[in-house]
């Protein structure tokens, strides 16, 4: 069951639903009564995209699934690429895929955006990433989907020894949205950071799912996802770390912390550690709470209006995640994105 399969066959019965354990909180079957017609090629967007202000960035645009299918960074090469996935047409569906290779010792800063211009589109994007020995990928993904969209992004990352993956996802959700990351982790000095932020309002939904498999000795994974939901929004966090037999000296830490800002909002969190090796250091932490009313009063007593005081506390809460972005321009952009999210309104 997958969205890709359903788009191919045109059969809604192929959509994942709550009966599939992995999709329990992201029921696409219930959200989509019929598979819409295929999206046309579409026009290049007028907007310059969220990363336009950054210097020295090459841009790749994939509109409604149409565009290049490969991005390669040569050995020892360093590149910064803005990768824009555009959904320009309402009431249509598309599938897009891209393979990214970073050869030995190379580095890629990938500034990825998913931008919805049409309403109620269905978008399915698959990205394969091969990160060579000692190579580095910093991936910053912004999901600007439309409120009525159904959007699934699935990335499969294959890491080599001593390689680094640093990922940060920033999302405001969609009707149904899933951002799924699979990492094949070889150990052997490779390191992974998988972070995420969600700020969801109205009836939006977003699901961040990660599956990391440690296959060899001496690997590290750190994960920090933070978010806030208000109105009747719904956030899903599913993080799974598997440590296979023999993957000793694995160091894996997963944290998910969220704020619920209204009674109708919902958060579903499912952290999982599956450990088959003996000598490992693994931990996970998960908290869901409300905004600190005392802190809110303290800020207001200094002259800051209620909405701004809430926004300040929310952006400070999730700012711990955006502070970890290595690329300075992208980090600044992420912080501006937080402030512009309007999450302070209640």
């Amino acid at each position: 069951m997958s969205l890709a399969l359903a788009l191919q066959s045109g059969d809604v019965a192929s959509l994942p639903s709550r009966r599939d354990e992995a999709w329990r909180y992201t029921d696409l079957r219930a959200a989509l009564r019929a598979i819409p017609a295929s999206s046309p090629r579409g026009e290049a967007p007028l907007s310059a995209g969220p990363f336009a202000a950054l210097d020295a960035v090459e841009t790749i645009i994939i509109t409604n699934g149409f565009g290049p299918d490969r991005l390669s960074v040569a050995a020892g090469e360093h590149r910064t690429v803005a990768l824009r996935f555009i959904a320009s047409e309402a009431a249509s569906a598309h599938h897009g895929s891209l393979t990214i290779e970073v050869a030995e010792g190379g580095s890629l800063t990938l500034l990825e955006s998913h931008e919805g211009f049409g309403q109620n589109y269905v978008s399915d994007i698959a990205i394969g990433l091969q990160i060579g020995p000692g190579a580095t990928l910093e991936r910053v993904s912004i999901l600007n989907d439309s409120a009525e969209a159904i959007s699934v992004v699935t990335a499969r990352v294959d890491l080599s020894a001593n390689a680094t993956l640093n990922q940060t996802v920033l999302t405001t959700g969609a009707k149904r949205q899933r951002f799924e990351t699979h990492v094949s982790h070889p150990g052997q000095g490779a390191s992974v950071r998988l972070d995420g932020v969600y700020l969801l309002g109205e009836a939006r939904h977003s699901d961040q799912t990660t599956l990391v498999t440690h296959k060899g000795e001496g690997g590290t994974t750190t994960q920090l996802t933070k978010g806030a939901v208000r109105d009747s929004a719904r956030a899903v966090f599913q993080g799974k770390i598997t440590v296979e037999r023999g993957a000793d000296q694995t160091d894996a830490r997963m944290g998910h912390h969220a704020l619920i800002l209204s009674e109708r909002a919902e958060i579903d969190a499912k952290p999982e550690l599956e450990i088959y090796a003996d000598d490992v250091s693994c931990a996970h932490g998960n908290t869901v709470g409300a905004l600190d009313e005392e802190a809110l009063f303290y800020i207001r007593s200094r002259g800051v209006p209620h909405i701004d005081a809430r926004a300040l506390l929310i952006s400070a809460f999730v700012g711990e995640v955006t502070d970890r972005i290595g690329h300075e321009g992208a980090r600044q952009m992420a912080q501006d994105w937080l402030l512009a999210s309007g999450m302070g309104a209640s």
Partner: protein
Amino acid sequence: MLLVTNLHVEVGGTPLLKGLSLQVPAGEVHAIMGPNGAGKSTLSYTLAGREGYEVTQGSASLNGEDLFALEANERAAKGLFLSFQYPLEIPGVPSLTFIRTALNAQRKARGEDEIGAPAFLKLAREKAASLKIDFDMLKRPLNVGFSGGEKKRMEICQMTMLLPKFLILDETDSGLDIDALRIVSEGVNALRSPERGMLVITHYQRLLDYIKPDRVHVLAGGKIVTSGGPELALELEETGYDRFAQVAA
């Protein structure tokens, strides 16, 4: 001038203030002393506009503005400043960002221009130096990991930059050693001026050795039971609060 008339306040249906009246003219420092549970913090929270403190009767005004018609942040913009007994820690928000946000929110509410970053930093450096606060401390998240004394000094730093018209100091001496008490008191005394009134709320006379009040009021059982000059504080130190328990009851 702060004017409080026949103030009755309930929290969760329990009456805590029962007809409190008080008048603090501009330029004067008044102390409110009283036993635990007398309603001291209730008074400061009610005046500052905290949710859950329900005014059932009476009024309070600052320079003619009806405080109870204003939101907490609007009261601050009108010049009211409450120094908290236990200042809150605000993770993720550097002190400088916090104070600048507050200052500009107040200026905006008053129809004044916002202060730019360079001018603000210059002001912050000056004020921090005058309070012997290490400027680097202002770059750290507000009050996070600060000692009790550092938190109180940060409160003074905030009021020194926001320049309110009226200060309420709620148990500012709690948790301070004698050196910190002296530094904090010097900061408060530097803010004394003919235009600015202050209400110093304290359990102990000790603070009033450093911040000398013009008037002393005793709060017991939710109202002011007696008032007098500075000598009243010394007298209380001798005799304790016991004799007021009956007056209030």
